[in-house]
């Protein structure tokens, strides 16, 4: 008889294994710009949104910290990258690193405020932190441009060679490459002991300290990493659009992000990406008809998800797969 920890290890290794639908997914991302040659800018926005959503998936889906203020990091990353490009250096990769450092710092600073509270308190604190940053960016217009947004960002060529083009082709490959690297990192993190500890904290916060897990430290690190990922996403948006607006910090953006994550399904990383794709495409199509309708459908969708489909698209898909699979093998 195998000891139970061995069985658990086998299960974990199985979960960690790279599966064929994943290859299909990323191949589709590689093929997409050739299928849609005129929409590279749009595709790059989807990749950035996917990256932003991954940050919430780490914080909320894996670590279970209810955050409705992820825009704080997104905006800070965007403004940092933009200001860095204007005042210091236009190199995009250097800009990403600076934005990442700044946002993870914010994460480390803000985390202690969160640790004491429970769900609702945490949620409100994240809202308040994002609100403070929003107001700061709004009032400090000498530096941030206030309501007009941060303009005049000039980004140097990638690696000193590849110029960003107007059609967004370089922007897409750049964003996709960053997204893929971050994704690999998070995928690794999720099945590492660290990621498993986070899942444990989410599922049973009382028990983890008893097992010797330093809960506060784990959550702080998770929140900081989540912040850094959101900051990278914001920096990418600033670099590829050469513009940062107050909207990047708004409550609306945080709420939208949460919608995207629950739409896709939280906690499995692909839900975040799938949600970002479906959301962006739906937004694109419906906004063309009328922007007001868009908000109506988004709200309705949220209500329906909460009432009927708690695990989102990826949950629905895997249930469908189980259903078909069982249906196929049933005698």
């Amino acid at each position: 008889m195998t000891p139970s920890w061995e069985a658990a290890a086998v299960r974990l290794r199985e979960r960690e294994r790279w599966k064929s639908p994943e290859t299909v997914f990323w191949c589709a991302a590689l093929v997409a710009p050739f299928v849609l040659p005129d929409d590279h800018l749009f595709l790059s926005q989807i990749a950035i949104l996917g990256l932003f959503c991954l940050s919430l998936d780490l914080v909320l889906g894996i670590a279970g910290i209810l955050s409705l203020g992820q825009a704080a990091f997104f905006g800070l990353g965007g403004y940092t990258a933009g200001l860095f490009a204007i005042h210091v250096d236009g190199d995009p990769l250097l800009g990403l690193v600076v934005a990442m450092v700044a946002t993870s710092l914010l994460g480390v600073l803000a985390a202690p405020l969160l640790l004491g509270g429970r769900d609702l308190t945490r949620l409100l604190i994240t809202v308040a932190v994002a609100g403070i940053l929003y107001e700061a960016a709004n009032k400090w217009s000498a530096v941030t441009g206030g309501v007009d947004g941060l303009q005049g960002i000039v980004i140097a060529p990638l690696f000193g060679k590849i110029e960003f083009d107007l059609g967004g082709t370089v922007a897409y490959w750049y964003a996709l490459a960053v997204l893929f690297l971050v994704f690999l990192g998070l995928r690794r993190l999720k099945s590492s002991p660290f990621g498993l500890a986070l899942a444990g904290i989410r599922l049973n916060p009382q028990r983890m300290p008893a097992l010797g897990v330093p809960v506060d430290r784990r959550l702080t690190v998770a929140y900081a990493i989540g912040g850094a990922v959101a900051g990278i996403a914001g920096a990418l948006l600033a670099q590829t659009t050469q513009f940062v607006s107050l909207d990047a910090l708004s409550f609306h953006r945080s709420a939208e992000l949460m919608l995207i994550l629950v739409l896709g399904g939280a906690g499995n990383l692909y839900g975040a990406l799938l949600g970002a794709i479906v959301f962006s495409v739906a937004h694109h199509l419906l906004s063309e008809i009328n922007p007001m309708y868009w908000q109506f459908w988004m709200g309705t969708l949220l209500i329906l998800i909460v009432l009927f489909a708690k695990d989102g698209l990826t949950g629905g898909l895997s249930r469908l797969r189980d259903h078909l699979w069982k249906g196929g093998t049933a005698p």
Partner: protein
Amino acid sequence: MTIVFDGIALGMLLFLISVGLSVTLGLMNFVNLANGAFAMLGGYVGVLLVNRWGVPFLGALALSTLCSLVVGATLERLLYRRLYAASHMDHVLFTVGLIFVSISLAAYFFGSGVQVIELPAFLQGRIEAFGVGFDSYRSFLIVVAIAIAAALQRILTSTRFGASLRAAVDNPRTARGVGIEVDRIFTITFAVGSALAGLGGALGTQMLGLDPVFAIKYVVYFLIVVIMGGPGSIRGSFLASMSIGVFDVVGKYYVPELGAFVIYVLMLAVLVARSRGLLPKFGGRS
């Protein structure tokens, strides 16, 4: 002095609108961020009645309160009820969804401009008392809010309904066992909260400005009121609303550069200070 008076009037509006949130959160453990949407509903109904159909102001107030009451009760029966046992995150998602829907509906029917209810003659101008002139609209607001606060406090602490509500919250199963109709009590409580929000919305168009984003614009204020006052406490909400109103108006008057900064910092400070005390006052259904 007038500034403080303005602040108190703003605080009273905040109280009317957020007391519903306080009750649903504190007594029913439901995070109803869409409370502002009910206020917006009341505001738009009021605008429609007074400006388009020429209904007298007080009648319109009553009707818009009634309208929010009915809509609140209907939504509670159809939707909210299913989520009482769900997590706070589901509450937030659901009510944010409601906010989005209400914003787009308001914009669809009324356009995105700011609407204002025309005040009747007796609420324009000023009242002279103790040698100081009081704006009569704001005085009216304050009187109404104080009356409602007193009534609510009394209902909750010393009537049979209040006792049943507290029993239903403390232990729904036992409450059902002794013959209290828990579902009905929750519906009524929720509907009354929505109605008060609607009344606040209709009364407040002059001070708060009514446009489609109303439902989301003041959410932070309502939340701070509830947090500071302690969820479920009428007296707490009342005092918190008043201090926030004064704080906000005075702050904006003397240091306009800070703007909403003050409010967010205040919210953060209160949250962190009370992070362990943010529990429903009478014990929730968790």
